[in-house]
């Protein structure tokens, strides 16, 4: 699972770290002063490292809860995100994390209690309701069997009914959640792209059918679930040569059929779509990392500091996709990511 485990001296003797280490007695355990010595060093290659990533156990300092980027979520309430982990066990070729970090190793910040206190503070200072996103810099559920993220953070939010926790994921690691009593202010948001896109770009990610099944189990158990159809990448080399955007629409039609066969739309918390978009600097880094990737050889354009793929009749295509989606859900459940 990991090629090695690096352990910051400061967290080395904490109960959480010791219990993680006990699970991996045969993996090299390496002490370090600060995680940045490994994670932020120069002369490392994300792409090669992804073949044998290591886990780094560390303590997070500084601001532990940050305002969410504009347009990130569903709710008009004050939005925040927190990152108990950096990087993801999956390897989606379109993922911005590849352009954001030098290292493909996973950093797990184990001072959950500090995160909990920071969340308490923000909630106390917020006048009304608030939303907290987890899974911005990682996939929160993918490593849950190791991190015990849910077992700590779900009870944290059960004490704050006025605040909502949204966990973004592509993972099927839902066992801990299924063992717990669902709380109304926790939303599990599962991301999907059509079968062809998943096969081409979502390496190591559980199959779409398995994800639908896991989400269905959560919904049946009483958890609030949400659907994120992101990133949308229109007409592409995943289809036959000369394919049009309409082929993408056909693929989405099939995806919606598959999803809503198992997921009851009437109780879905929210559904969103969003085009592929990425900060320019991350995109440049990714192009350097994957100069041979067809996806990044496409025509692009830049809007407000974000790189997007150039698409003919973009808004028309998006509207057509939304129209398809409204055949399954009502408009009040829907938002388009900015």
């Amino acid at each position, binding site marked *: 699972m990991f090629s*090695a485990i690096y352990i910051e001296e400061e967290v080395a003797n904490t109960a959480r770290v010791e219990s993680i280490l006990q699970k991996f007695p045969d993996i090299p355990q390496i002490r370090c002063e600060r995680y940045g010595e490994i994670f932020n060093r120069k002369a490392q290659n994300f792409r090669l490292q992804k073949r044998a990533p290591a886990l780094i156990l560390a303590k997070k300092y500084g601001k532990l809860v940050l305002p969410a980027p504009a347009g990130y979520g569903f709710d008009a309430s004050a939005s925040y995100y927190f990152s108990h982990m950096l990087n993801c066990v999956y390897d989606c070729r379109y993922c911005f994390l590849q352009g954001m970090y030098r290292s493909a190793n996973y950093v797990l910040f184990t001072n959950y209690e500090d995160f909990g206190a920071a969340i308490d503070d923000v909630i106390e200072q917020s006048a009304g309701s608030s939303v907290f996103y987890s899974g911005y810099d990682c996939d929160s559920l993918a490593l849950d069997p190791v991190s015990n993220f849910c077992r700590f953070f779900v009870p944290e939010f059960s004490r704050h009914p006025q605040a909502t926790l949204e966990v973004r994921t592509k993972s099927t690691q839902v066992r801990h959640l299924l063992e717990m009593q669902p709380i109304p202010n926790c939303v599990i948001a599962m991301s999907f792209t059509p079968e062809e896109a998943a096969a081409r770009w979502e390496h190591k990610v559980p199959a779409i059918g398995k994800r639908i099944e896991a989400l269905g189990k959560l919904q049946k158990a009483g958890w609030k679930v949400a659907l994120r159809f992101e990133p949308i990448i229109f007409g592409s080399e995943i289809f036959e040569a000369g394919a049009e955007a309409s082929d993408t629409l056909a693929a989405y039609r099939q995806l919606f059929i598959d999803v809503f066969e198992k997921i009851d739309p009437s109780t879905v918390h929210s559904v969103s779509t969003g085009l592929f978009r990425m900060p320019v600097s991350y995109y440049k880094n990714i192009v350097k990392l994957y100069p041979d990737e*067809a996806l990044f*050889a496409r025509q692009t354009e830049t809007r407000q500091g974000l790189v997007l793929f150039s698409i003919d009749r973009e808004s028309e295509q998006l509207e057509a996709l939304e129209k398809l989606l409204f055949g399954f859900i009502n408009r009040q459940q829907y938002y388009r990511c900015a």
Partner: protein
Amino acid sequence: MTHRSGVNLVVAHALEAKPLIGFFRLRRQLAAKPYPIYGGEEGICLIVSGLGRQAAAAATLHLGKWQAQQMGAVSGWLNIGIAGHQKLAIGEGILAHKIIERASSSCFYPSQMFSGFHTGDVISVDAPELNYPENAAYEMEASGFYASAMSFANAELAQVYKIISDNPSNSVEKIDARFVSDCMSGQIDQIQRLVSGLQELAEVYNDAYQLPEVLMQLGSNVKPTVTQQFQLKRLVQRYHALNRSDELNDFLNKSFNSARQLMAELELNLRQSGGQ
């Protein structure tokens, strides 16, 4: 299997080098001076650095620069040698997962890319350590080697492998030529596994990042500026990525007034027939 990508072995002493030279069938490269450098058909190269971290650093730099003139592809780097250890038995091998330079307290962390090896801390000292105070391998070259290797490769492609020659119950004085040879030979399978692993990784790296030859040919007639060289490189990479490299041959047969014109036409062609 022949590899396009190589692996450089850096060893301190001729006695450590000898079994490796034999096993990998390496021959002395006459052109290389002042260090003894050996090469073979499988892309493996060996340099004898001399003792100590400064010598290892200098020899690694020398080999890296010498090779840069010869090839251009990235190679794997492996420092191999004998070491003392507090706990490990004589003849055991240890892949460094952390290198600590005793004099400066600097630490290096080679990425752990290979499974099935015993791994541990390696401490580079300036004089032989006879008391083995920590659970680590004590030797004299790894930190110098690693710091220099980082000029030519990344943390995934540079590794350090040490074979235990002395410990609290087997003193340094017992080490002689035969003993060194036995130590190295006893670990040859593991060394070969590491060399193959590094070779494969370097291959992956070079496949992804080595510049297509057609780039030089395209650029040779139009004299691109430095900025234009980058732009032209990216255009050629896009053709490759989109599996349209064949179309570049048409451009080789045409003449262009300037790099700008060449790039405009390459770009236009991508847009027109690619649908991307």
